[in-house]
């Protein structure tokens, strides 16, 4: 096993332990809790009145726009992290290069801002 992967072995053990804890508690709960199902109990909660409409509601488009913008900045992060690690090697060239990159991305944000996408309506 490569040394690179061994560092994640502990993470895997930890994840297993965490998953086990959840499973254990759930099983314990399943073993000891009472179960007296009734029609009323399985109705979706809507402040006490009968639920209206269909099962899965639709949410507004504005949430989706923030997801799109997030992709922009997450991809940006993919480029910025390696750059930050090797900045000393690149020197002034790296700084100017990243300056240009960030300005272009900032233009994207300004465009979104100008278009009123960031405005919560």
């Amino acid at each position, binding site marked *: 096993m490569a040394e690179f992967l061994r560092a994640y072995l502990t*993470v895997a053990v930890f994840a297993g332990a965490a998953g086990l804890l959840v499973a254990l508690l*759930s099983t314990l709960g399943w073993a000891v*809790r009472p179960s007296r199902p009734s029609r009323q109990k399985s109705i979706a909660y809507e402040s006490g009145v009968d639920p209206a409409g269909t099962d899965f*509601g639709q*949410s507004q488009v504005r949430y989706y726009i923030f997801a799109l913008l997030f992709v922009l900045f997450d991809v940006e992060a993919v480029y*910025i992290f390696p750059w*930050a690690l090797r900045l000393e090697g690149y020197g002034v060239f790296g*700084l100017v290069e990243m300056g240009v990159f*960030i300005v272009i991305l900032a233009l994207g*944000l300004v465009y979104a801002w100008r278009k009123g996408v960031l405005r919560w309506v």
Partner: protein
Amino acid sequence: MTGDPLFADGFDWVVLAILVAKAVIGFTIVVVGVIFMIWFERKVVADMQNRIGPNRAGRWGLGQTLADGIKLIFKEDLKPDRADKPVFRLAPYLSVVPAFLTFTIVPIGGVFTGGNDGGVELFGRRTWMQVADPPVGVLFLLAMSSIAVYGIMLAGWSSGSKYPLLGSVRATAQMVSYEAALGLSVVAVVLLSGSLSTHDIVAAQAGSIFDWNVIATAAVPFVVFCVAATAELNRPPFDLVEAEQELVGGFHTEYSSIRFGMFYLAEFMNTITMSAIIVTLFLGGPAGPVLFGPPLIWGTLWFTLKLLVFLFIFVWLRATLPRYRYDQLMDLGWKRLIPLSLGWLLVIGAISIGRDAGWNRPLTLVGAFSLGVISWAALIGAMRVAKLRRGGDEFGELSTATERVG
């Protein structure tokens, strides 16, 4: 840039035993920490609101969390008949497991000064005092907070009910927005340390207090990170996800019994790990003066003290600040924090390049800052002009907004 020396030469049963021991110790710390954190939060909030708080279960109410847990285990588990059952069952796992995993990259002690590399001897092997030290520690942190979004999103969506759905889409938009700010503010730390590994980041801050990243990066990334972390944790004043007055319980409205307990657990666990991450990235982790006795103990002690300060601050925020409105929240994230951290990143980059190249230091500082101010002013000016051209005034946005909705 070596990684944990535990894995450097060969892999045998001793290494495996140490590995499992570390996982068990870390696990215990998190679980015990969470039990005390819930008690601590309730007690401190009670004090701030002039109440007594839990005082029945055990001395000073210390057993309150256990009592609540036992109660939740014995509660009937209700699932709405419209729920997507498998996903409904899966969501607590997706919430709890990343909360645990973030803690793996936190160094909880170790001596980093005087030529030491922060390692401790354990059964004749050297290892770091952290559960794991992946070479991409900081990215691991960001990845885990991304996965936590899935837990909340799926929990709300699979409930087949309106309040949870609204709570979860809100949560997703909020966490995703602030994750961008979170990631960009960490870059400044990475830039100074030259490494993504949390062990190396702590080692780079080991000298004096002026090496701590909160001072070395001039506090701006620290503030951005703290605000973004609070939003990422869905804690007040950014707890719109579970705004009781609007959404009942938010994404976990339909959860009951121990399944609800899981989300509760994950929330407090995240608070602890995020405070630990803030201490690690910005406040030197276990760095601090050694007064007497073995330095190893002082490292862990300083780390715990700093951690407690942040835990208290999170509780304090909850007790004092009113909740943000959703548009204010989004404005703060996208229009303030992200441009600020992007600009600051360039300033920090310019300063560090300038130091390497031997430029005139005050000149570099003044140049970088004035460039930052000029671009900020240009940005604000452009927005102002654009708004004027549209013929809107301060309230122009509001009227178009109502038109759009109508």
